């Protein structure tokens, strides 16, 4: 991320109260396109796709002058979603970025485990 974001994430362990984590769904190759490729190669391809999309989104955020309102972008995974901690304003704007399919909040949730 840009300098402002890097500085913010290195100083604070939790984001400012006006920010929240959002799920940003991104385009990815379809399962049909990936058919016949072995697991390791699929992992590489999907991960590379997520990294590429992440970089595109980072660049887009910078171009829009929004980087001071972004606390953190989690490391990309093999899945077609990025987790971005930012202001709601950035989240709304992100829906207009090219690689983005949708943006939603990423709430913590309680799980239905059994206690003994």
């Amino acid at each position, binding site marked *: 991320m840009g300098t402002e974001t890097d500085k913010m994430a290195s100083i604070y362990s939790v984001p400012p109260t006006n920010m929240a984590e959002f799920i940003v769904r991104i385009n990815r190759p379809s399962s049909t396109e990936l058919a016949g490729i072995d697991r*390791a190669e*699929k992992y590489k391809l999907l991960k590379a796709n997520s990294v590429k999309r992440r970089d595109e989104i980072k660049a887009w955020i910078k171009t829009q002058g929004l980087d001071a309102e972004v606390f953190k972008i989690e490391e990309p995974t093999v899945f077609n979603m990025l987790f971005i901690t930012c202001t709601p304003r950035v989240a709304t704007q992100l829906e207009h970025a090219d690689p983005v399919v*949708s943006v939603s909040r990423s709430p*913590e949730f*309680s799980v239905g485990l059994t206690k*003994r």
Partner: protein
Amino acid sequence: MHSFIALIKKSKFETMNLETLLVNDKQRSRTDNNTLFPKLTDEFTQKLTEVLIPLGFKRVTTETPMEEDASDDEQLSNFIPLNYLGAYVVNSPNEQKIKEAEKLFDESDYDIISDVQLSLPKPTQSERIYRRRKQINWPTESGVHEAHRNGIIGKGVLVGVLDTGCDADHIQFRRKQIDFRYVPLHYRFKKLRDVRGFDVDGHGTHVCGIIAGQSIGVAPGVDLMVASVIESETYRTSLSRISIALDWMIFEFGTEDNRDKPIIINMSLGFVPELIPKRDRDLLMVGIRELISTLVEDFDVLPIVAIGNDRPGNMCAPEYFPETLSVGAIDSKHKPAPFSGGGFSPISREPQPDIAGYGVNIFSSVGRDRNNRTLYTEMSGTSMAAPYGTEIAALYASVNTNFRRDILRRHLLNTALPLQAPADRVGVGLARFT
């Protein structure tokens, strides 16, 4: 029980985040300077008393409440002081009282934050700890003993577990190499930690014991990968944590040693969609479904999930997704457990769970005491039925490594023992190895 937190507005004392406050607390101790720090002032306590007592909340105290002899009413209406936050957690007997209190505090110097997600599932079994292993007798119809007698113990199958963790030094796992990662909750540290398997709670250790405990497990020969993604105190997690953990697992699935092995992932976790705000719920469901689809369609994983303990007619997500195999709980006499959830999937309209497993008074590992002695306990829940089902699947997959995802799923369903109970309680019947 519902909870809410009453906080002094931060603007009253400066805008600070939690870490800043804790740092300042140390400074305050040294300098005895109270001005920078929010605290439980008499004024705050008095205000709470004035507002809440007339609403039927019983008392306000700055001491830790919950004396054993407190009446039910008092326990329901307790105030738990959070001195360093200048806040109280207030437990309310019902939502209406919270709404009434919210109105009264709305224009004042206080924030009222509803926190319904703090409620946890009710216990389904009282606690009893054993220091020695009991003789485990999986019923004959399960086919487990017969499989073990024939040397079928799950070898060559990868099983991933998402849970509270696993105590790798429990005697049931000491001869096993558990590939373990901890995914921290908080931002600065939200990276995988490659550490020896631990489990503060015990739930994950219990699940792993059913799966691969050396002498108590259904399939002790499987290769076990465990990711700790659930906080032991709050039982909370997030989609980002789960995806970080699964990303690690998927990477490992592709390594030279693993790339041809069948894979099953056991998830004794789920959430009740109604507890998530509507605005987040739908997209969260889309996110989780895509994550599960990636596992199934791209990496040939069979995800096996507990249907949930919210009683018949209720289910958690992602249990009712068509991509997962959901497991309900029965007792040793084949009766559906009263807590075991079920119903009809809002997506596929098919009855759920898909299948049933033993989930009542299941004996398994739970951790160690301070003298390093291993402990066991009995737990009840669909969290126990799911690993049983997972490992029946692992036994099949170890016999025929071509059994993957849909084929394995179909085989498990086709070989189930039919039960005298409705499909929306036990699915096609009891998972068994034949």
